[in-house]
């Protein structure tokens, strides 16, 4: 891949952010949670939206959510040096749902349950060795209320 000037700047910005303060010590990333698009979320979290889709990131989410209020999501990765795992729901008003900072003792595997307002792509972003990798999946949300 050719290194363009823009990518270099983004990379440099990411490095600066990293050097300024390790994420684990930072306060709650308010800017990322207020961001309106997945790119803005990544910019706010990592100082870069330069992300590569990777088979080393495994996102487990249902094809059709039984109920958009409680959608089980799990993300794991076989990559080394995973520092952060973030879950972005593109169509949610605030796309960032959760962002996990991993310390040295943590395996790259997290599960949680999230709210989805409507059918949307869900993106799992993994930051490993300073680079961003992702996996995504569309989760269909049908709103009902007669079930059970």
């Amino acid at each position, binding site marked *: 891949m050719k290194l363009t000037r823009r990518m270099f700047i983004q990379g440099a910005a990411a490095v600066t952010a990293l050097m300024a303060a390790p994420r684990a010590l930072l306060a709650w990333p308010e800017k990322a949670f207020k961001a309106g698009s997945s790119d803005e979320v990544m910019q706010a979290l990592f100082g870069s939206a330069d992300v590569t889709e990777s088979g080393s990131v495994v996102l487990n989410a249902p094809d059709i959510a039984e*109920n958009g*209020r409680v959608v089980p999501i799990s993300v794991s990765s076989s990559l080394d040096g995973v520092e952060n795992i973030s879950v972005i729901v593109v169509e949610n008003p605030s796309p960032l749902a959760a962002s996990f900072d991993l310390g040295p003792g943590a395996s790259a595997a997290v599960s949680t349950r999230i709210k989805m307002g409507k059918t949307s792509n869900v993106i799992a972003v993994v930051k490993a060795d300073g680079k961003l990798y992702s996996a995504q999946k569309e989760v269909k949300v049908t709103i009902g209320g007669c079930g*059970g």
Partner: protein
Amino acid sequence: MKRILVTILGMALVAGLAWATPEEDRLAFIDYHKKRFPNVAVEDYLNGVYAINPPAYQQWLQIEEFPPYELAMAEGKELFETPFANGKSYADCFPNGGVGIRQNYPYFDAETGQVKTLELEINECRAANGEAPLKYSKGKMASISAYMAFTSRGQKLNIVIPDDARAMAAYEDGKAYYYSKRGQLNFSCADCHVANSGMMIRADMLSPALGHPTHFPVYRSKWDDMGTLHRRFGGCNKQVRAVPLPAQSEEYRNLEYFLTYMSNGMEVNGPGARK
């Protein structure tokens, strides 16, 4: 004359159909489900709709990893074990200290001539010990009921209809409620959960009737909360645009009596998690 005779014959026929014994009803109920869902084992119905909906079953298993009802169960255990102001506790009100008894509810109480449910007796226990009653549909009542159901998991439902005309009348009353159409939509409980179980109603699959009472109370994602069986009855009534009856009304208790008898012999699996 001939016409009157035909009418009488017709009435006798209709009446005859309702005269089946509860046990005949139950066996017919199981038979119906076996034919409707040939690939589902009878004991699997304790998982409700998840017995017949594999994709939803997968998500349910993930929820069951740490089901939200465990918070209510923990609260219920704490409440159950906390003595009343007079020093007594729930354990003093129930057989076997209230542990592992869910499978015997509801039952017919010969003294009062009424069907007694577990939730009703929880409040009777409170009243007997000078405590204010709890609301029947959710909250602390659902938590205590959830804990008591949990201590009974694996026990088989053992609903008894004694040789007492009043008990039989209560059963028949519950059965009539179950099969009677009501509300603006003109649906009975059975129209959705017997005749159309497994069908989609908008985005939801209608759950089968067999095993319905095994897994209550439930944490329903739709409610974001726990609810008792009678809360669900009320919800179903509202969905067909009927005014729901109060939780623990005589009609709902009789309905529970009938419906639970239909699942006799199945394991208690409450509390449950539903969408």
